[in-house]
């Protein structure tokens, strides 16, 4: 067969995503009596709103691709990634994926009270590594994250880390394993220039290991450097899907308006 080389890893088929938002509670709604009443009468709290974030998105991602997701704030990029990872249900249509996609986001905290190295161990075990593998990879991961460049930070609790350091460590943990599909939500943007180069290199390696990488970023540079294909989302719809250069040109023209 001619298309033997093209193995799809993620297929979105007219996917719609609607999610509920709990806006800040009105006074009194958090009291035991009010919550008891809601439980008994089985009513939803009045402050729940529905957001139709993704309105019918279809695309097919293949092995070895790095796909950048671009679009203005609130266009549904992060929502789409979370749906691909299986963290948000699709209300209509479907999203199919190979294996279990892993989502890596800046706000995905590990255990803040524990030192970085314990987090590395826990994270690796949680990804299904054996204790022996964890032992072998631990130093490499800490080394890659570069958190020890200024003193022995790996033995400090993670709550003492700067946001950039925490993001670097989280990326390093997630990137230590081979993923069929890796979803990165702005995680690279928080690192400094040196770490960004290193992580972009790692993203390329992951693609070479026949994985698919999705990257959400507002940094045009890191999209251009890592992705060969771009999907441009605007108000929950795909406006363009194609080679990075073409899509970026259109996108930039649109943003300048």
């Amino acid at each position, binding site marked *: 067969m001619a298309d033997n080389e093209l193995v799809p890893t*993620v*297929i979105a088929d007219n996917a719609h995503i609607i999610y509920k938002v709990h806006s800040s509670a009105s006074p009194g709604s958090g009291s035991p009596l009010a919550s008891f009443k809601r439980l008994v009468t089985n009513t939803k709290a009045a402050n729940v709103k529905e957001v139709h974030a993704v309105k019918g998105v279809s695309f*097919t991602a293949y092995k070895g*691709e790095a796909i950048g997701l671009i679009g203005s704030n609130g266009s549904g990029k992060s929502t789409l990634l979370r749906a691909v990872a299986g963290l948000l249900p699709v209300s209509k249509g479907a999203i199919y994926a*190979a294996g279990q996609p892993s989502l890596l986001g800046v706000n995905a*905290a590990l255990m803040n009270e524990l030192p970085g190295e314990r987090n590395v161990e826990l994270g690796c075990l949680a*990804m*299904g590594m054996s204790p022996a593998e964890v032992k072998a990879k631990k130093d490499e991961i800490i080394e890659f994250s570069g958190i020890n460049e200024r003193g022995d930070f790996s033995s400090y609790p993670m709550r003492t880390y700067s946001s950039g350091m925490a993001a670097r460590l989280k990326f390093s943990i997630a990137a230590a394993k081979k993923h069929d599909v890796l979803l990165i939500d702005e995680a690279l943007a928080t690192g400094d220039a040196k770490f960004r180069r290193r992580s972009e290199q790692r993203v390329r390696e992951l693609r070479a290991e026949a994985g698919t990488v999705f990257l959400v970023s507002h940094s045009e540079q890191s999209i251009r450097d890592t992705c*060969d294909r771009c999907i441009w989302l605007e108000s929950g719809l795909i406006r363009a*899907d194609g080679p990075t250069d073409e899509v970026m040109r259109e996108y930039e023209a649109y943003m300048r308006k």
Partner: protein
Amino acid sequence: MPETAVAETGTELSPKELARRHGLTASGRLPSLPEYTRQLLSYRHFIQSHASAKMSSSLGSTKLGTVWQVLTPIINAAVYYLIFGVIIGTSKGIDNFPAYLCIGVFVFQFTQSIVQTGINAITGNLGLIRALHFPRASLPLSAALVEIRNFMVALLVLMGIVLITGEPITVEWLLLLPLLALQSLFNTGLAMFMARYGSKNRDIKQLIPFIMRFWMYGSAVLYPVTLFTEKLDGWQLALVEANPMLIFIELFRHALLENVTLAGTPTMLWIQALAWSAVVGIGGYVYFWRGEKGYGRG
């Protein structure tokens, strides 16, 4: 490198057929129960290290550290003894009231802490859940493991208290082992149930303190169990005596104390305890598994 990937999207196959042909699954497919159990077993190292991480992070910032594991149950028992044993004096008719009371307090505390940590097992670990993929049952299991370890320490303290108050060591103390296993099974199922229930209904957390207090008064922790037989009859008594916590506490008293009036015959209590543990243990696990794909969503 598939550079022309984009052009290929317009093949004749519908997305659904294409997905099936390449073995792609809709994200969020639920694994079968045996498959899930196998996955969970392969994550046992994660469960263990998550449990000890939780333990060291909760006690790590205190000066006394692990001493609190022993100190907390002792203080707890002392408070209740002062109020119910000395001031109110409910000890009428019980030979060794301090030991009787302590057993109730310790055993109930075991289940109470499981309920409190179980309900946070999912909501308190959303970061971990959203970032990494592992069988979610690892989290309530690790919470249960922490409490089981805590209770084993508390049980040693309890045996000390029982000995000091003048009870002899008998063969019946050996019953503590199967009893510990049964209550642990019951509690683990309860933790799983609370974890899923609490992840969907955040409001329940506000009600837990009241529910637990009500449950405690219905479990004859602070007063003799004979009080129920004197004051209640018919379906009310049947309801109170079917209470799993009452059954566990009674069995612990039966194992540790010499002269104690139980709510029923030991054989009957054992059968009830076995039934409760099986139903809640397995039921809680199945209930949690059914919700596997929904955790971390929203």
